[in-house]
């Protein structure tokens, strides 16, 4: 990301450019991220982000031994500028628009759930996290990964089942993990990620770390037992955890009203006493503000919170969904729901950035995505023996 013509939105306390975000961190695996290491299991020492846990418990200063860890997108929780949010959303949008092209070319296969229209939630929450904050997502998680700083090339390569994928091609679109960037899991079993996040938050709590865990899920996941049991536990244990629900009104082809009598997800958790808020997920600034308040409180020991983002899924449930169950959105309505167009209009009118700067951000995002997709195609399929080797983790040498 290049020049910033005007001072960005007032929340910007500290500038962290996207270029630093993208290139500034050296891999701790001793080999270039996602490039063939001699032993793939070596990558996994459940890495730096987690290796820190017990250093913390034993009182070692983790930030000293890992100076980069304290920074990253949104290191202060307030550091991402409006223009950067725009750039992040563009990256997500261009990424998601590239996926169907890869699918048509036969390069990306399987179940592909895109988040076009929901970028405001990803940018307004995930991009606000510290690098060592832990994130769990679900089946519609590409945008969350991008906003958390996961490299685009590794994501594309993962969708293509290639060795340079973030999971070496063994995960796929619904199972993106990048421990290095704090993305701890994604689930294809709806709701299955929610208890995992409770567990991560429990670890942080026991280690007396200032680490926040965030879990993203759809409105459909709210009807799982996992959601209710997890909210109960998180509230009971006052965990540093923010539940973020992307309420796009649909679970696959079925509207929320066919699954529950409770319209607002925030109302579901009311008896547990969680801090909670419902926001317009197409308004990334509103998401960022609401999330910032809830996240700071949860991080500060005030207990878990729920953020419900009302959002709109522009494309089908998955690629290939004919969407017979709903009418197409009108141009005018999309103009109003599109989080990118909205931020651009508002940013320019509020003087947070110029139209030219916005255009530059868009161009840079397009370039980054195109380059990543091109490089990902160069990666090869993982070797057959990899699947045998990764069934069980090996004991780490003492």
């Amino acid at each position, binding site marked *: 990301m290049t020049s910033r013509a005007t001072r960005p939105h007032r929340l910007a306390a500290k500038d962290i450019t996207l270029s630093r975000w993208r290139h500034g961190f050296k891999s701790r695996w001793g080999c270039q991220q996602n490039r063939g290491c001699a032993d*793939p*299991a070596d*990558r*996994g020492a*459940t*890495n730096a982000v*987690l*290796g*820190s*846990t*017990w250093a913390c*418990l*034993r009182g070692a200063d983790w930030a000293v031994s890992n100076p980069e860890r304290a920074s990253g997108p949104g290191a202060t929780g307030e550091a991402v500028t409006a223009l950067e949010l725009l750039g992040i959303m563009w990256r997500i949008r261009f990424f998601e628009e590239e996926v169907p092209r890869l699918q048509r070319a036969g390069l990306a296969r399987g179940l592909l759930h895109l988040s076009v229209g929901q970028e405001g939630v990803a940018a307004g929450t995930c991009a606000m996290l510290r690098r060592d904050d*832990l994130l*769990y997502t679900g089946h519609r998680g590409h945008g969350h990964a991008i906003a958390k700083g996961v490299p685009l090339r590794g994501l594309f390569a993962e969708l293509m089942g290639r060795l340079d*994928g*973030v*999971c*070496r*091609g*063994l*995960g796929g679109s619904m*199972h993106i*993990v*990048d*421990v*290095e960037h704090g993305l*701890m*899991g994604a*689930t294809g*079993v709806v709701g*299955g990620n*929610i*208890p*995992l*996040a*409770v*567990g*991560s*938050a*429990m*670890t*942080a709590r*026991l*280690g007396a770390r200032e680490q926040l865990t965030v879990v993203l899920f759809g409105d459909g996941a709210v009807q799982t*037992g*996992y959601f209710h*049991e*997890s909210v*109960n*536990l998180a509230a*009971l244990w006052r965990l540093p955890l923010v539940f973020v629900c992307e309420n796009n009104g649909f679970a696959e082809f079925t509207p929320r009203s066919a699954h529950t009598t409770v319209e607002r997800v925030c109302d579901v958790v009311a008896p547990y006493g969680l801090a909670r808020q419902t926001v317009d997920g197409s308004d990334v600034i509103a998401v960022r503000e609401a999330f910032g308040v809830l996240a700071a409180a949860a991080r500060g020991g005030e207990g878990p919170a729920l953020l419900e983002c009302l959002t709109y899924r522009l494309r089908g449930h998955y690629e290939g969904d004919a969407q017979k169950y709903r009418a197409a959105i009108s141009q005018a309505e999309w103009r109003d729901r599109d989080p990118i167009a909205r931020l651009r209009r508002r940013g320019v009118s509020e003087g947070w950035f110029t139209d030219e700067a916005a255009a530059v951000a868009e161009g840079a995002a397009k370039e980054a995505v195109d380059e990543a997709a091109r490089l990902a195609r160069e990666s090869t399929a993982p070797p057959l023996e990899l*699947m045998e080797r*990764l*069934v*069980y*983790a*090996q*004991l*780490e040498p003492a």
Partner: protein
Amino acid sequence: MTYVKAVNAALAGAMRADPRVVVMGEDVAEGGPYTATAGLAEEFGRQRVIDTPISEATVCGVAIGAAQSGLRPVLEIMYIDFVALALDQLVNQAAKAHFMSGGQLRVPLVLRTQGGAGHRSGAQHSQSLESWLVHTPGLKVVMPARAVDAAGLLASAIADPNPVVVIEHKALYFRREDVPDPVEAVPLGVARTARNGRDVTIVAFSRLVYEALEAAEQLASEGIDAEVIDARTLVPFDLEAVLGSVSRTGRLVVAHEAVRQGGFGAEIASAVHEAAFDLLRAPVQRVGARFTPVPFSGPLEDAYVPGRAEICAAVRATLVS
């Protein structure tokens, strides 16, 4: 010391040695129904001995998330029957996290539970369900028979970087035996010869090891010399030990308390057939429960649970041919 006290000693030892080890489950701070966790809350505090609500599905996921992020949780599921609630997390998350993440994640989780019939507990508190677990790549499965193995295998399970399910047997909890203090780790995946013999090999695990030993004594009086192998770990399975024994005896009986149909005995029998058909002098015989739920009524339950008599009959069947 009793089997359950050995489990307790192994837990306490692991918690003393490693601050990452936490114990979670229903009533664990109160010691649990069989006293397996008695005294731990007093020594280590309720931060590390964590009582959970009756939310097995979620709590299993919580333990997995905690394991992925740096803790070494030992989760107690009070009865293996309730593992059914936790299977989604165990199978879809814990077992696959390392694999699906391309080796990035590790799940050093121990799920302790107990199974088995004989206590008039009815069909929902008496099952032997290890077959559900051994079919899932990524899980390890342990079924100790002796107190020393209950402790030693648990110690190894806690040290292991993978999810390990340790299935204890409720009918063994109060058997007494010498156990070294401190507990000595017993490696996963190594079987133990419980009795040497020349004529037939009996492979068993958990409670049926004792039934096999008693059967061997009875058979000895008939002039049949049986070797008894305690498998101890089902995944990874020590096939070498079984093949070594079968190469001497040429006859094999596999015995477990679980329902025979689809049971782990079928896996052992077929692995031996594949690897050593020419060593066998008779078809492998399987001992397991009949294909019904565990009955409540005393006489019926006693008839249901396989034991010494069934093992003896199976051994004799291998000697006919």
